[in-house]
């Protein structure tokens, strides 16, 4: 039985697409047949971050409209086996996403994949609502600042009231918190909210803390999911996040500021 996971946040620019790319790549690396869908019709950039924008022929909207079949539109990732990408259309708008159409595509994908990751657009309009409607689980990406946390809270409310599971009265969508762009030193100084502050406000389990890292920008410019940059702190944090999602009990890293001594800097660690 396939699991549909939405990566959502409410606010834009917090790291949804980065998280979708690395999360999907991480699941595939661990042997699960995984597809990641870009729901940001009109502003697609999952394919850029995944480094496959030049290979897009057909897209999500083509399939919904019956202009192509899934095999024509799905892009196989060249680096990670088991990973497929379903890109968004650059030339349509989000009204092209009909509930029946999305459901049909998801049902077809369920036949062939174990994990279906839906990369939601920002906002709470049609694109975001369609991305979360069929979800079984949700990664709610938030940054340690007040407006981002507020918008995530709003999205959690929508997940609890307007998803298919909520409407049908089934078990609620399982919620996971991903705290991205976290800088422990700045949280200690009070410049940003701390992990505890965010958890207290949102009250959902923490799946992972992704540190603020130059590696994220570098890898996204290079078209590589940062989880594949295994030596980077952000890559390691995403790797832990995927393991935790799959049931491993790992302590959270990158949540405390560390003064790096000379030896530590020399030998790495932390």
């Amino acid at each position: 039985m396939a699991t549909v996971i939405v990566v959502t946040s409410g606010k834009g620019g917090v790291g949804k697409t980065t998280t979708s790319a690395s999360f999907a790549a991480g699941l595939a690396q661990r042997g699960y047949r995984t597809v990641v869908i870009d729901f940001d019709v009109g502003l697609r950039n999952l394919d850029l971050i995944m480094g496959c924008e030049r290979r897009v022929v057909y897209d999500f909207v083509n399939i919904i409209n019956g202009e192509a079949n899934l095999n024509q539109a799905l892009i196989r990732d060249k680096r990670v086996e088991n990973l497929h990408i379903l890109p968004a259309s650059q030339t349509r708008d989000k009204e092209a996403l009909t509930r029946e159409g999305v459901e049909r595509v998801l049902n077809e994908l369920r036949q062939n994949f174990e994990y279906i990751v839906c990369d939601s657009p920002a906002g709470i309009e049609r694109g975001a609502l369609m991305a979360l409607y069929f979800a079984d689980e949700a990664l709610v990406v938030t940054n340690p600042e007040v407006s981002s946390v507020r918008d995530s809270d709003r999205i959690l409310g929508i997940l609890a009231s307007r998803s298919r599971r909520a409407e049908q009265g089934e078990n609620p969508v399982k919620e996971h918190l991903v705290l991205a762009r976290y800088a422990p030193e700045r949280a200690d100084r009070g410049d940003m909210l701390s992990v505890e502050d965010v958890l207290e406000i949102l009250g959902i389990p923490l799946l992972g803390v992704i540190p603020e890292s130059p590696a994220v920008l570098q890898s996204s410019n290079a078209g590589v999911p940062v989880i594949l940059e295994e030596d980077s702190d952000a890559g390691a944090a995403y790797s832990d996040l995927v393991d935790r999602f799959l049931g491993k009990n790992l302590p959270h890293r990158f949540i405390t500021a560390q003064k790096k001594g000379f030896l530590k800097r020399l030998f790495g660690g932390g």
Partner: protein
Amino acid sequence: MLLRSPRFADENIPPFELKGSLFTLTVLHLFQLDRAAIERHLTEKVKQAPSFFNNTPVVIDLEGLVEPPNGLDGVDFNGLYALLRGHGMAPVGIRHGSPELQAAIRQAGLPILPDSRSAGAAKKTERPEPAPARSRIVNHPVRSGQQIYAPDGDLIILGAVSAGAEVIADGNIHIYGVLRGRALAGVKGDVETWIFCQSLEAELISIAGRYRISEQINLDPADRGKPMQIHLMDDRLVIDHLIR
């Protein structure tokens, strides 16, 4: 002669006893103290229904009276009585009116009747008891952008109320979590309603329309994270510890 004093009065049979009783009386609502105008109007009324004005007992009600701007000098209640008697009415007393008017009535030696509140209260008890209002229980946190309303009854939230969320009830509001959003109890005007929460960090609290926004709440920082209760006293919101 009606009153005689026999030499040996029977002490076992009291000459009278006092008992309360209810009467239906005509009430004359007086609006002006203009003698000429009253007389003119009375004559007209008597012409319309002569049989009605046959020693009819009336109560004079001053509630709607517009008091003359030049004070109460020259106001003559005995004169008013005489005027009414002259038109076939038997005034039995006066009710309502400002303290000054009541003093003038007392000075004239006329009876003042109590307000008719008891009649309203008696009517209320006859009405069937309304069915007890059901409380609305919400077993999840209330998130930003959500609004939950409990009509006619209490609202019970098993979780936090986020900033940007709104919980509203005609009755009381109980929040088993942190209140960061807005809570409005007694929105139909019930001043007896309360708000309870496990920690008060609200954007707005309101009871029966009396409200305070966060910067007017002025909670002692030491009380942050403590269970609090909010109610109205003398038309002011009172915020207090839940457990003293």
